[in-house]
């Protein structure tokens, strides 16, 4: 297995992008990443496109072939990767394995989703389609609903409080407000959302005990990476990033069937595999992007990865350990909560953000000082298919 480098990263702002088609977004993010990689007019060997809703929302399939054509990357190999909300990381994994194996030298990995194609009821139904057809979907359960079932279990077991969840919301919205690519660019006022007389109006319960501001928004967006061999990366003459560790694990399709759903076994297993491959431990990580589709998940994942002991993730957020400048800054981008969660884009966007961190390119109010090692968790279904990446900065 050869080492694999990331030599290009690009994104387009997440949010409501009525003026763009899905293909426009994928193409734009791809060109940003190709330009960043300095590939100019050059081709890549392979294209991996992460997308979930093309068939259901846009009535468009075989998106990767279409993108290769639009970008005039022919005759590059091309595949669309659909793995629910973990599609982005799955596409990156495909690029990683293809280059590590020696078969390809360069790959474009891009993820994108246009969720505002349909109204919110249909978008909710689209997202719910990943649940078990008979044992979950038929009952009307939604992903936030599964989040609510999980949150109640986790909060009761570990004493996580509403204040802990608020702390995640406030931190991630504060960071999103500084991120030009974020869906929500507005810091939240404590009084409007949590304490004031209008709190329950502004921040209603949507999936008890989770409220509106505990949930990620419905977003459009795209993000892209260019992967290559280390030999190619070295020629760029600037610092680059290598994929030091990778791990993936699955869990039961339904949440109910797990012996203890709070365990998030696929999260801990995927992280353990990534740490073993990178020969690193949780305390070696300088910055992390976790899959905070719901606030409770950021807390739970931070414990299952091993950043904090079981039951200590809530206090860690409240005491500032996970903010910029803290012990382990988590979701400095704003996370899924504020950057947004255009499904296929998310896993790629998380890695784009870590690449920018490790190349020390972000403005001071978003840059984790001297960050050299970063981690991502991209989580599919309700934690039934999880991918973890560990990335490391390499000096030019």
């Amino acid at each position, binding site marked *: 297995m050869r080492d694999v480098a990331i030599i290009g990263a690009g994104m387009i702002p997440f949010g409501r992008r009525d003026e763009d088609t899905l293909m426009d977004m994928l193409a734009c993010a791809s060109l940003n990443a190709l330009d960043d990689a300095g590939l100019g007019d050059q081709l890549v060997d392979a294209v991996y496109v992460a997308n979930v809703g093309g068939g259901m929302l846009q009535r468009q399939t075989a998106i990767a072939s279409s993108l290769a054509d639009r970008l005039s990357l022919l005759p590059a190999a091309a595949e669309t990767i659909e793995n629910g909300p973990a599609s982005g990381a799955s596409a990156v994994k495909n690029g990683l394995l293809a280059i590590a194996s020696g078969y390809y030298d360069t790959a474009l990995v891009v993820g994108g989703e246009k969720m505002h194609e349909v109204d919110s009821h249909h978008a909710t139904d689209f997202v719910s389609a990943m649940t078990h057809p008979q044992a979950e979907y038929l009952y009307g*359960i939604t992903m936030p609903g599964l989040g609510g079932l999980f949150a109640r279990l986790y909060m009761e077991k570990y004493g996580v409080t509403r204040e802990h969840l608020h702390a995640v919301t406030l931190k991630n919205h504060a960071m999103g407000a500084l991120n030009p690519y974020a869906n929500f660019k507005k810091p939240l006022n404590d009084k409007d959302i949590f304490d004031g007389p209008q709190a329950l109006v502004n921040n209603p319960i949507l999936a*008890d005990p989770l409220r509106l501001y505990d949930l990620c928004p419905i977003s459009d967006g795209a993000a892209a990476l260019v992967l290559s061999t280390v030999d190619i990366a070295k020629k760029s003459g600037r610092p680059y990033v290598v994929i030091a560790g990778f791990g993936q694990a699955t869990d039961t399709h339904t949440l109910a069937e797990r012996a203890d759903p709070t365990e998030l076994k696929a999260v801990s297993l995927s992280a353990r595999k990534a740490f073993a491959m990178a020969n690193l431990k949780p305390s070696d990580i300088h910055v992390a992007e976790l899959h905070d589709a719901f606030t409770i998940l950021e807390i739970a994942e931070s414990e299952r990865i091993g950043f904090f002991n079981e039951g200590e993730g809530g206090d860690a957020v409240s005491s500032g350990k996970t903010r910029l400048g803290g012990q382990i800054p988590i979701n400095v981008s704003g996370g899924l909560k504020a950057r947004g969660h255009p499904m296929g884009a998310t896993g790629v966007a998380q890695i784009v953000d870590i690449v920018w961190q490790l190349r020390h390119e972000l403005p001071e109010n978003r840059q984790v000082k001297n960050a050299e090692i970063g981690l991502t968790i991209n989580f599919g279904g309700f934690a039934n298919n999880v991918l973890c990446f560990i990335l490391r900065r390499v000096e030019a």
Partner: protein
Amino acid sequence: MKTVSAFIAYQCKRCGRMHYPFHDRCMDCKGREFEEVKPQGNAKLLTYTAIFSLPCGFDQRFLILGVAEFEGNVKALGQVKADSVDQLKVGMIVKSSWEPIRFQSGEDVYGLKFEPLE
């Protein structure tokens, strides 16, 4: 669509492990033969939620859902018959029934409902 007339769980004929929903191989011993069992009666409510943003196909303001555990270690999601989550508690006993849970393509679809007993 095939109408299912009762809640059915699947017990591995080789090692006895209970499964719900159906798996083609036993999660423990990988056995492929299962006995259909029908968990009925009371169950213990393990967790619950009320969702206020419903997918298309549900014409109501909110929906209460819960996971309950039957005797024999079968756990399943169901709709909860309650007016508010304030009437619910983790660990409470609920009575299960098999009733219409949604209306689809002109017919009722049946599934699990849980009714608090306390």
